[in-house]
């Protein structure tokens, strides 16, 4: 499991200040939580292909990082993936590769792999972080599953 915060290890002070200012009047603590979840996404996303639903706030942080092109490039290089994490619009992909959608069975397996991998790398989903993972929150809501039970089911798969 990753020890500590990704933003403390990979985000430069200038990028931190930039994100905090761009997200005002949102509180700095909230911005840094969203940034942490965005970095978790970048930390793991290169290991899979396909969609990983994130919420608007995390997506916004990703977009803000990408706009600082040089610093975003360096951030990607400094993270364990050491590779540039590209971003392309779903609408663009629809035209560029009409077959990019996975069959539901493959997508379900990969979504589950993402959630299990998240727990293995960053610990159990909590009330603080599940709000940024729409898919996980959606599953808990739809099936009336407690967070404790959700984490337990994910850990049973290890």
């Amino acid at each position, binding site marked *: *499991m990753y020890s500590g915060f990704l933003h403390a290890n990979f985000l430069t002070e200038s990028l931190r200040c930039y994100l905090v200012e761009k997200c005002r009047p949102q509180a700095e603590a909230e911005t840094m939580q969203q940034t942490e979840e965005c970095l978790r996404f970048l930390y793991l996303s290169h290991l899979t292909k396909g969609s990983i639903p994130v919420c608007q706030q995390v997506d916004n942080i990703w977009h803000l990082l990408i706009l600082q092109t040089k610093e975003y490039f360096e951030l990607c290089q400094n993270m364990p993936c050491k590779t540039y994490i590209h971003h392309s619009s779903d609408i663009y992909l629809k035209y560029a590769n009409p077959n990019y959608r996975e069959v539901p069975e493959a997508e*379900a397996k990969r979504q589950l792999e993402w959630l299990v991998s998240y727990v293995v790398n960053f610990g159990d989903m909590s009330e603080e972080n599940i709000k940024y993972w729409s898919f996980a929150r959606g599953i808990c809501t739809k099936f009336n599953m407690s967070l404790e039970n959700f984490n337990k089911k994910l850990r049973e*798969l290890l």
Partner: protein
Amino acid sequence: MHNEPTWITLKDDVKENSLYSQILLFLNNKEELVDLLKAAGCTGVCTGPGGCK
């Protein structure tokens, strides 16, 4: 200090798992999925090497 990321690849027998079945049920109802994601503040689907809509 920097740990390496770990990706968990699940075996095909995960299809017997109840959580897998629930996720599949969720994915097969795209309208409900989109509504629920929107209600959660998600405007789209972001991907790793792919993108977001």
